[in-house]
């Protein structure tokens, strides 16, 4: 029987030297987290400017979870991220421009304007984006894991769901199939305290969402989702276990959704004090402090990285805005494959 650990190791004072990661790897995490935040802030700005015509979502507070988890994957592994996981898209190799084109509904975007945000598939990078009915991609991701197992490939499928989406029946069905077939599947449950306006107190009685793993007979752990190193370590363990044929795992990553559900929502229903508490645990700020104190990140590097990211995003925005929307009559194409 696999052992089920649901004890969250105390990780409030994170970023001790109790890890074996090299400075380059840590800096890589840091860069991607910075890039993620800047990208998502830009998305919100474009929304305010009326340039994003539909919903715009922010993963502010979730950067360590998105970056740390996807960093545990290899190129050949599959990523099934959520809308607050832009960091995961970027780590898996998606370009800023492609993500921008998607958000701006341009013809040259990955879905050619048929869908927005991270709702796309890029088979060359093995990224399979979510759809709006959350949980629907869990069985699909499990099916990709099944196909990989049938083909005897040693790959892993990583999929994400939120504290809200985890209530959907398809999540259970996917997990029950993945566990019964011992498929190489890792589900990250991003517990960011709110499903739109509904707090976790109205969503479940379990202490930790990883406790649900017991019901599937698979390992489940809860990690501090604002600690990129802890997320990375927990995910690496689950991913490598899955790769060796050890079956699926659940990782609950505890974070806070620092913005509203989407750009239109100012989250008035979230207690100010709660946000202030979480602000102290801002994943980027905390990691930055650690890197600085460990002598890994210099003031110069920090500044130059900021500039570099800003330039990259500005370029992508400029390029994407210059591209056209798809012509209306393209509506009729591609309902079927030929």
């Amino acid at each position: 029987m696999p052992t089920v650990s649901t004890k969250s190791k105390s990780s409030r004072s994170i970023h001790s030297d109790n890890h074996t990661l090299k400075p380059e790897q840590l800096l890589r995490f840091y860069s991607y987290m910075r890039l993620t935040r800047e990208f998502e802030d830009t998305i919100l700005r474009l929304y305010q400017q009326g340039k994003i015509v539909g919903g715009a979502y922010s993963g502010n507070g979730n950067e360590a979870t998105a970056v740390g988890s996807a960093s545990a994957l290899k190129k050949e592994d599959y990523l099934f991220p959520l809308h607050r996981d832009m960091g995961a898209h970027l780590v898996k190799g998606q370009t800023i421009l492609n993500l921008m084109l998607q958000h701006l509904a341009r013809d040259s975007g990955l879905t050619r304007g048929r869908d927005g945000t991270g709702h796309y598939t890029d088979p060359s990078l093995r990224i399979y984006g979510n759809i709006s009915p959350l949980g629907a991609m869990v069985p699909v991701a499990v099916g990709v894991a099944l196909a990989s197992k049938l083909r005897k490939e040693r790959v892993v499928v990583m999929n994400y769901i939120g504290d809200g989406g985890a209530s959907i029946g398809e999540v259970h069905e996917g997990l029950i199939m993945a566990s019964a077939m011992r498929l190489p599947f890792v589900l990250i449950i991003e517990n960011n305290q709110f499903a739109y306006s509904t707090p976790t107190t109205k969503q479940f009685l379990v202490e930790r969402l990883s406790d649900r793993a017991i019901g599937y007979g698979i390992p489940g752990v809860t990690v501090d989702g604002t600690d990129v190193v802890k997320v990375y370590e927990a995910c690496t363990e689950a991913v490598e276990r899955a790769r060796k044929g050890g079956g699926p795992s659940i990782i609950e990553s505890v974070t806070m959704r620092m913005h509203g559900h989407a750009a239109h929502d100012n989250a008035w229903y979230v207690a100010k004090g709660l946000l202030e508490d979480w602000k102290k645990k801002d994943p980027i700020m905390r990691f930055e402090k650690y890197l600085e104190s460990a002598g890994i990140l210099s003031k110069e590097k920090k500044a130059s990285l900021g500039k570099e990211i800003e330039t990259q995003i500005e370029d992508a925005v400029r390029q994407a805005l210059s591209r056209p929307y798809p012509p209306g009559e393209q509506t009729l194409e591609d309902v079927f494959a030929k």
Partner: protein
Amino acid sequence: MSNPITYLEGISEGLREEMRRDKSVFLLGEDIGTYGGAFKVTKGFVEEFGEDRVIDTVLAEAAIIGAATGAAIVGMRPVAEMQFADFVTNGFNQLVNVTARYHYRNFIPVPLVVRLPFGAGLRGGPFHSVSPEAWFFHTPGLKLVAPSTPYDAKGLIKAAIRDPNPVLYFEHKYLYRHVKSEIPNEEFVVPIGKADIKREGSDITVITYSAGVHWSLEASGIVENEGISVEVVDLRSLLPIDEETILRSVRKTGKVLIVHEDTLTGGIGAELSAIIGAAAFEFLDAPIRRLAAPDTPVPYAPTLEDYFLPNAHKVADAIRLLAEY
């Protein structure tokens, strides 16, 4: 021609041939492996193809359809079995929100077949008898086929497996062992999107599919003695609809009866009526008639189910009314 085979054997033969032909084809569903399927369509398959290609799944239709979709988008050719078509509702979100829209949004083929044992006549009651095709008929991105003969059953399952799109394959449980005919020994495929004239006639066109074809053929024989010549168009594919074949027949006869086992309101007959009304109005000598089950759940008691279902005599009566018009 071979020895006569049943409709069910037609499906089995088609599945087996495609699995031998293409290693990426695999089956998944409840009780399809060791047990051979609730109706024995996959009897002997696990022995020939092994447990990796004939997969007994957990009892979870959303997971079955979702997993099949996942396997399809990475290049496999899964055939998912719903034990009864009634249970497909558990996987409805997968089919309409994920599967059907996948290519349109991502330009990735979804070569998936979902087999749906459907239809009444076996005293199955409200949850083992439904004809759910109209729920999916309204979903862009899906193809729907519903064979009526062993030949079409075999040819269409092969075409469905080879199609790069999700195909819902409606196999009628009553026809499984009640219909038997010879089929060619040589390999053949029945193309999706082509209707078939199952009987030629000149006075009235009956448009139907699946079990309706057999009621309509029997009814055509009955009214022939009364001097009414009936043409029976078997749709075979519900999506896409073969409008050309339908309209050609309607223009020839000028009178149309649409027959289906599914309930009347919002059924496929409604769309066919609109198509014919728009494209062949000036050829019509009578209002388009529809014969379908009443708008009720499928009831259990023999008296109730018999009342609910269309049959050859009800079709013959509807034909007579049209002939008199």
